[in-house]
């Protein structure tokens, strides 16, 4: 668990982070969002003490970070950044094994762990272990970066716009992989991004920052439905908010059980988002869709009316 209490950071006369308080529960993915210069990266880097906070307290599992030796602290917190920060003079395998080696793991264990991680992140060992970072594509490099962050199996993972420099398709793939990874590994993740779609897609909890303060925090749905002010509303897409909301609700949550009525031709998968369902309706000129499962068997139906219904009270 990570806890920030009234944490403040000043650079000279400028207050970069202004008395913010935040709790990230174990297994939670918390996304810090906001415009550039709002203090989100500074907040992230204060957690592993790359930047020291001036006032307030930062606790990890109830212990102030100041009490840790900073290197010991960092070795138990995974860290992945936008530029990957892979060491250009080391091979992929050596890069991934960095923290285990710093922790003086025995060599066979490091090797086994590297292999495990490469498999976990879909990097074939024969193909990539001996490569140097400059021989990798952006997406591959970022995978190695994430593998390196996970190497010593840290409970906490800090990620600073890790997918920021990638093309949209690679970015979406890696986001999906991270979501999957998270469902298996259950790490506590603090994630900085300025891509609102990415934050909405990944985060359990969204923290909106502005000028060093937290403007609002909550689940993505909460923020989409009840933005605290104009700033949050426009950050979340203004009038597009409705569409963003449909993008994080699954069809399965809204569908109705099969009825005796004739099923429509147009169909949508139960794990698709409402947004995708909406797109199918628009394309097929249909206001009703059959909901199908993996075997393409109908499991329910979804109407436009049902889709747009206000179900906040449920």
């Amino acid at each position: 668990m990570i806890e920030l209490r009234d944490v403040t950071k000043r650079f000279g006369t400028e207050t970069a982070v202004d008395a913010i308080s935040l709790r990230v529960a174990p297994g939670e993915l918390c996304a810090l969002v906001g415009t550039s210069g709002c203090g989100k990266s500074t907040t992230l880097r204060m957690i592993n003490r790359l930047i020291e906070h001036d006032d307030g307290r930062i606790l990890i599992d109830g212990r102030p970070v100041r009490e840790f030796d900073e290197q010991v602290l960092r070795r138990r917190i995974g860290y992945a950044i936008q530029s990957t920060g892979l060491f250009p003079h080391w091979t992929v395998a050596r890069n991934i094994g960095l923290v285990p080696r710093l922790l003086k793991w025995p060599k066979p264990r490091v090797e086994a762990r590297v292999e495990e991680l490469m498999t976990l992140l879909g990097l074939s060992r024969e193909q990539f272990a001996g490569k140097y970072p400059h021989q990798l594509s952006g997406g591959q490099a970022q995978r190695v970066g994430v593998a390196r962050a996970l190497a010593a199996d840290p409970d906490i993972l800090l990620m600073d716009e890790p997918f920021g420099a990638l093309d949209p398709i690679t970015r979406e793939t890696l986001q999906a992989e991270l979501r999957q990874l998270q469902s298996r590994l259950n790490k506590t993740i603090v994630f900085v991004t300025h891509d609102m779609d990415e934050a909405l897609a990944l985060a359990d909890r969204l923290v909106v920052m502005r000028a060093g303060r937290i403007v609002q925090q909550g689940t993505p749905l909460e923020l989409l439905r009840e933005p605290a002010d104009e700033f949050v509303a426009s950050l979340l897409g203004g009038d597009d908010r409705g569409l963003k909301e449909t993008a994080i609700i699954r069809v399965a949550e809204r569908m109705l059980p099969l009825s005796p009525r004739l099923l429509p031709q147009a169909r949508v998968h139960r794990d698709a988002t409402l947004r995708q369902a909406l797109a199918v309706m628009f394309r097929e000129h249909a206001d009703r869709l059959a909901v199908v499962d993996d075997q393409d068997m109908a499991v329910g139906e979804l109407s436009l009316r049902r889709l747009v219904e206000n179900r906040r009270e449920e």
Partner: protein
Amino acid sequence: MRREAPPPNRVIGLLVLVAGLGWWLLATVSVAPNRIVPGSPLRAHEAAGWPAALALVLALAGLAALTWRPARRRLWLALALATLLLMALPAWLALAATSSVDPSLPQARLGLGAGFWLLLFCLSLMVIELRTRLALGLSAGWLLVAAVVSAWWLASPWLEPLALMREYQGRSDQFAGALVYHLLLVGAAVGASLVVGALIALAMRRHSAIERGAFTLLNFLQTIPSLALFGLLLAPLAWLAANVGWVNALGVRGIGWAPAFLALLGYSLLPMVRNTFVGLSGVEAGVLEAARGMGMSRRQVFLQVRLPLALPVVLEGVRITTVQAIGLAAVAALIGAGGLGTFIFQGLGQAAMDLVLLGALPILAMALAVDSLLGALTRRLDPRMAAGAPA
């Protein structure tokens, strides 16, 4: 389907033309009965007969023909032919020596003429060009150089009448000494500048005031021409030697190794400090941030990340410095520092051009060898030699 034939290699064509004209029209060698009398110039056919002269022209024409349709196989053949020609040149010189130098005159000598130099130069350029076109690696280059050098080496017993050889035989001990001394002077100056330069660069990283000051001073030093710097060091060192006992005891004088070493050190510091500093400072911020973020200690970050990444740039500094020092050490001979420069300036003083060559050629060879060796080492150490780091 007809494949488009590649256009003729005009570079080789031009070089063949220049070399051929030079070979035919200019003096290839000159023959003198002794060291003092200026030699009488001989053209190719006068020196070693028509057959040899024509054979070379034919070989050159062959080179042009092979590169007219430059398919890869033909370029290989052309490279082999050009290398063979370079290897055959000492044989031709031996032939010229036997046919035009009077064996009854022990001091008679054969000087190389403009035509011969031009041919040598053009052939070397052709080898470089063909090597580039065939995209051959460094080891292939070394192999070619080794082949040519060993051919000349093997032919050397027959090349005794060559003026260069005569000059060498007159002072072979002196030559070995000068060579060693030259290398020692350069090695000492570069070694010292590496240590001092690294210390200065580290200090500069600590304090930006030192950074500005050191760069200004070293730039200033680098601007002063070598001859002037040697001259300016002469007076203070002479004074120190005369007035300070321990300095004198060290063997420091106004002339000799002391001013040479100091001047070489001064010149070497700028490239060394600049490259060390740039190398250490130029490591990508994200890499350092990641290193710290992963929990590496300051020491680990420096030794495992910063230093290895800076090393190619530092080595580049060593390369520049060494090549520069090899040349400057030659100038130092003027202030009595010894080394190969001695032959150059003696030769210039006595108007004995082959003595000049005896000094200048090894210096050239040393500079080229150091440049290519250290260059290769730098590339080997740099994992990103082929492409830049990913964005």
